[in-house]
């Protein structure tokens, strides 16, 4: 009879081990989010620099880059939207990297951050389609990156709830 608590502890330890063995899958998702955010960061840095330098960005796939990037929606209170985007992507990279290395708090912050970026991307696509009536390929790339990040974060949430 005295062996029962030890047996339960052993079962509990085994269950923890099984749970730990599933963690690498979330780690891969966090690492994927980290790498994906770098694409968005590069895109946003390019747009931010072109905005600050005042250069008219050339589109190669669509024809509305300068219309979109010179519109009133390209900056918020004088701050280029692309610069805000670059900061957001860098934050996502930092949080996803920390989460991949086991910092749980970073993973929790990642969800609202990416959620906010997802809603912002939807709003910006709406502006391009219906208000400015022109599309910028670099902005569409940024939206695509955000949608992929959203998918990864949703996958992480589903996996961690199992």
């Amino acid at each position, binding site marked *: 009879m005295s062996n029962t608590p030890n047996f339960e502890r052993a079962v509990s330890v085994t269950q923890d081990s099984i749970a730990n063995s599933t963690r690498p899958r979330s780690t891969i998702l966090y690492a994927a989010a980290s790498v994906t955010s770098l694409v968005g960061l590069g895109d946003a840095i390019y747009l931010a620099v072109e905005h600050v330098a005042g*250069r008219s960005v050339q589109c190669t796939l669509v*024809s509305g880059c*300068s219309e979109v990037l010179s519109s009133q929606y390209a900056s918020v209170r004088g701050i280029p939207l692309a610069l805000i985007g670059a900061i957001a992507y860098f934050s996502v990279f930092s949080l996803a990297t920390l989460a991949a290395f086991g910092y749980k708090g970073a993973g929790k912050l990642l969800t609202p951050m990416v959620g906010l970026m997802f809603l912002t991307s939807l709003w910006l696509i709406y502006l391009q389609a219906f208000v400015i009536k022109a599309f910028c390929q670099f902005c569409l790339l940024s939206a695509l990156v955000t949608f992929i990040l959203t998918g990864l974060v949703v996958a992480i949430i589903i996996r961690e709830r199992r």
Partner: protein
Amino acid sequence: MKRALPFLLIAAVLAIALVIAWSLMRSGTDAPIPSATPVVSQSVSPNNPAPPTPAAIAEPGADPPHAEGPANALVTIEEFGDFQCPPCAMLHPVLKEMEKEFGSKLRVIFREFPLVPAHEHALSAARSAEAAALQGKFWEMHDLIYTNQNAWKNAFDVRPIFEEYAKTIGLNLERYRQDLTSETVQNRIFLDGKRARALGVKGTPTVFLNGREVPFPSLEPTKLRPLIEAEIASRSK
């Protein structure tokens, strides 16, 4: 070490991002060129143009350039513009205002740099302005095209619109139509484009003030005016 690794990665990415941003920023601004007109002083100082680069000498652009203001003006602004680019249209009234304010002290040169294929009508607009130039009406056409950019930029066919402008400024329409596709017109656009590429111009508007590139945020009247005044002051000494 393992605990520090994510922080090292984050710091490395931040450093790389800053270096990329800095080099992108520099890539469009470190190509000082000589003024298109002879300058009073050739000495190099923070307010004076840098020595001409070989590329700038080798590619003088279309000759003579489209210029407003005297050839011996103290300050020369050389703009590389695209008629379909919205920031260029925003810059247009600013330069007009500066021309009025500074009179004979300022010379403004316009160089063609149509962003093809991004702006599908930019080349047609450039040709129209160049065809008008062959009848001595470049600036009249230039002003009309920029002022009415919103009216034609989304049109399917801009030719009838530009023909209307040609009529408005009193061009001989037959000659204008012939000149649109003439070798002279195409060659001028080509030569300006070659100069732009030689100088590292990547977008529009790119503006050089006495050979030094002026960043776009400084092209507002309140920021451009002091730059011109400083240049005039340094050359009047």
